[in-house]
């Protein structure tokens, strides 16, 4: 038992304080350097711009660009726990990693393509549910209701709770005997389900949790989109005799679409990359519940195959990148960046 003692408080404060002091010293040194180069060597008219940008650029370079470069290098190595200090680098190792991703099981049994298809199915199911339920709730909320504010607060709660807590709690509630899910199922006359050990049960459990977690975000975005639609469009549609369904299809959806599209792209990326839900709900580490990113985590930190995992990570990123590029080009979602 390590409780919170004065010694721990003291050492932790000292370590964090030293880190902050070192960072500040580094920033000051960097600023002086940038100023010297920009003002004295390059004789820029406005040395303030590079000085303002330098700390963020150095930080991003150190924590995004360098690691990605290092990952590419690792992908061409056979680094593992046994060969942690002295891995071999070379094209042949890169080729080996690449071929073993597609021809050997990624973990123990699952091959890459089933894993990939499962991830795509997971993303499609989740985003569909999020959008449909989120839009439905938003449409229901977008009217005069006595308890509107209360509904809104209660419905956002799954988003507000820290995700780790939600996932761990849900996992506990999938307990065969004492979890509320099975208790309710039994109470209404359905049989209890083995949520943790049965592959299908676990897959469904994962999906339930993530629907619960993801709907509030879409609901909030959709509600914002609906509220931005002027009432006049609906009045005009009603004068033309449009029914409720027709108004939804011809007024609501087309006008909400510009706001919903970026949210859907974000939703796809978040779901595809979702780590917490498949990792925590899959307590017994069934390979049938892994998606690409959890398989990547296990390959790296449970099987300790760092070189293989680096190559695997790059493949996952390329898939996501291809999707985003295609989607952005198709919808023109990044038009606003050009300024």
């Amino acid at each position: 038992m390590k409780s919170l003692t004065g010694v721990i408080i003291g050492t932790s404060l000292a370590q964090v304080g030293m880190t902050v002091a070192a960072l500040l010293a580094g920033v000051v040194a960097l600023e002086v350097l940038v100023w010297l180069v920009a003002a004295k060597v390059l004789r820029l008219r406005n040395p303030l711009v590079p000085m303002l940008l330098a700390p963020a650029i150095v930080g991003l370079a150190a924590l995004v660009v360098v690691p990605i470069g290092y990952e590419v290098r690792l992908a061409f190595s056979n680094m593992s726990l046994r060969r942690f200090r002295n891995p071999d680098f070379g094209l042949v190792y890169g080729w080996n990693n690449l071929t073993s991703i597609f021809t050997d099981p990624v973990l123990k049994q699952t091959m890459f393509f089933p894993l990939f298809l499962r991830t795509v199915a997971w993303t499609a199911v989740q985003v569909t549910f999020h959008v449909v339920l989120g839009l439905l709730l938003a449409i229901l909320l977008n009217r005069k209701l006595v308890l509107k504010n209360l509904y809104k607060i209660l419905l956002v709660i799954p988003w507000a709770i820290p995700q780790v807590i939600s996932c761990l709690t849900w996992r506990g509630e999938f307990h065969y005997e004492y979890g509320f899910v099975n208790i309710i199922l039994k109470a209404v006359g359905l049989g209890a389900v083995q949520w943790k050990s049965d592959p299908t049960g676990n897959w469904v459990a994962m999906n339930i949790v993530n629907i619960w977690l993801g709907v509030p975000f879409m609901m909030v975005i959709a509600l914002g989109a609906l509220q931005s639609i002027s009432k006049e469009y609906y009045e005009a549609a009603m004068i033309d005799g449009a029914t409720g369904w027709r108004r939804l299809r011809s007024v609501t959806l087309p006008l909400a679409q510009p706001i919903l599209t970026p949210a859907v792209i974000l939703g796809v990326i978040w779901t595809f990359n979702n780590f917490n839900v498949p990792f925590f709900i899959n307590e017994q580490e069934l390979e049938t519940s892994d998606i690409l990113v959890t398989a990547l985590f296990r390959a790296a930190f449970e099987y300790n195959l760092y070189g293989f995992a680096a190559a695997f990570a790059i493949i996952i990123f390329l898939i996501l990148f291809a999707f985003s590029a295609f989607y952005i080009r198709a919808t023109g979602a990044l038009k606003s960046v050009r300024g």
Partner: protein
Amino acid sequence: MATHGNILRRVLLARVNGENLWFRVLVNGILIIACIAAVYPALRIFSVSLRPGDRLLSTSLAVIPGDATLANFRRVIIEKDFLLWLWNSLLITITTAVTGLMLAATSAYAFSRWRFHGRNAFLVFLLATQMIPAAMMMVPLYIIAARLGLINTYRGLVIAYSVSSVPFSIWIMKGYYDTIPGSLEEAATIDGASRMYTLWRIILPLAAPALAVVFLFNFMSSWNDFLLARIMLQKPAMLTWPLGLQRLQDQFRTEWGAYSAASLLLAVPVSALFLYTSKWLISGLTLGSVKGD
């Protein structure tokens, strides 16, 4: 309050909207069911945390157990490492939220006020970093951290978290700076103020709402992080709360009462903060996309 005329008008309006009484009952019914589905799983944490030690494994669905007790809270605070985890998380999170904010606030100002070579490419690069799966960065970060001796240090996490939300923060800050008219700085410059002085004394105070959103966003994202902490920290004295909770909920000897009490203590303040600030957080989320320029 409502006169007859008023009621009549409202009924007519409801007719026009096609909303009769049954429709309203249906709408409210669906919303109430949705609310129960949203809230009940969260309430379970509350009810389990109140159960006495010998009745943790119970098949009751009641929210407040008949023999409610606070023993679990006492236990988790006194016998478990709860306070230690909380301290570690708070220390790391507050430090990184402040450093991340400073990095973003200064560089976003440059993006908002000046046009320079590579500006647009850099802004797109910042957006692109948001597409990188967190799990993808773990392998190189872990190995670099191990090589530099940063595993099991506060140092490693503080540095990593400080930068992780910077791209998103820059977008929010830039969007907000763009709404502040440049004539303010011109006036200050005519009065002889330096650009840094203007940023510090005029622009940053005006950007206080955006600074608050960015601080909160940074705070929430490192406060709730599991993955990076899981990789960087193994020593029991170093754990942040997500790692601590995971240990409490061990597969073979879950201490349900202690787990639920700890979860409740952690979830209530953070969720309340989130609900209270969600309006600004959400406007911040959309700001980056709307205020493109």
